[in-house]
């Protein structure tokens, strides 16, 4: 999630070249919104979605999926926090 502190607005006035750069800027904004500084969360959610669809396709859409979904989501959160801990700045 990008916050205002990470996207400091450029106070320059908009001009024609600014309009030409708009699609690229929009793409970067969307990529920042979805991936940001946590690609492991995006990847993790894709893995959860893939696993859930695989279970559903093999007929496990009942109790198995009801247990597997929260467990997988919890694993994604734990892995992401663990990654932040490993990459922490020293001291």
């Amino acid at each position, binding site marked *: 999630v990008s916050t205002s*502190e990470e996207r400091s*607005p450029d106070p320059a*006035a908009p001009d024609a070249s600014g309009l030409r750069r708009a699609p690229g800027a929009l793409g970067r904004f969307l990529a920042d919104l979805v991936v940001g500084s946590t690609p492991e969360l995006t990847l993790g959610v894709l893995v959860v979605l893939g696993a859930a669809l695989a279970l559903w396709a093999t007929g496990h*859409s*009942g109790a198995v*999926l*009801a247990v597997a979904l929260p467990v997988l*989501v919890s694993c994604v959160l734990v892995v992401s926090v663990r990654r932040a*801990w490993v990459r922490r700045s020293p001291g």
Partner: protein
Amino acid sequence: VPSSDAAVVVAVFFACAVEAVEALTIVVAVGATRGWRPALWGLAAALAALAALVAALGPALTRVPISGLRVAVGAALLLFGLQWLRKAVLRAGGLLAHHDEHEIYRRQVAELGSAAPTRSGPDRVGIAVAFKGVFLEGIEVVIVVLSVGASSQRLGLAVLAALAAILVVGVTGLILARYVPGLPENAVKMTVGLMLVSFGTFWMGEGLGVGWPGSDAAVLYLLAAYGALCLVITRVLRHAVAADRHRSSSARVHV
């Protein structure tokens, strides 16, 4: 009021309130440095653009088959919810500095103060900064409103909850004249993250045909389970951070 309706209102209200505080900080910074006219023009233009997005995408979403929509929305809510939750847990655990609206305000004022003043006509710099601040913060709210509203088939209720949050934060901001520092922001962010992740799990399951025990009440026990997990992670992280700082300071003493 059904519990699922209350959950929709709470999730959207708090998600919107947190983003509205951040947007209000930028608008007030523009108002204080460039004048209130460009700040309010930027604010109005951004709110109009966000409202147009909801009006355009909201009805379209209601035409998508509900099962597929719930799986897609579940994935989106999981992504945003996990991002919020991760940040809130890292802050609560002491690994990340707390969000500082005072610092954002100070930086924004410094940036705007250094921009050249407009000689004639409307202040394009002020309008653009206010517009960008509100629009960027608002995009996430629009996604939450559309996702939660369309999946629960309570789009009107979700929009009303978002408007109520904007009104409450806006009026409070006007009364306090500068901005709204009083919200326990990290606790609110963690609550919203927990709700988005719970809704995301619930709807992804619903879309794939999971018959959750207790039906809609599943959101509540998912919320409790994720809440317990976050408490455990936060506690472990606090201990680890404290031990790490102790080790670092001991090492410095020995050097």
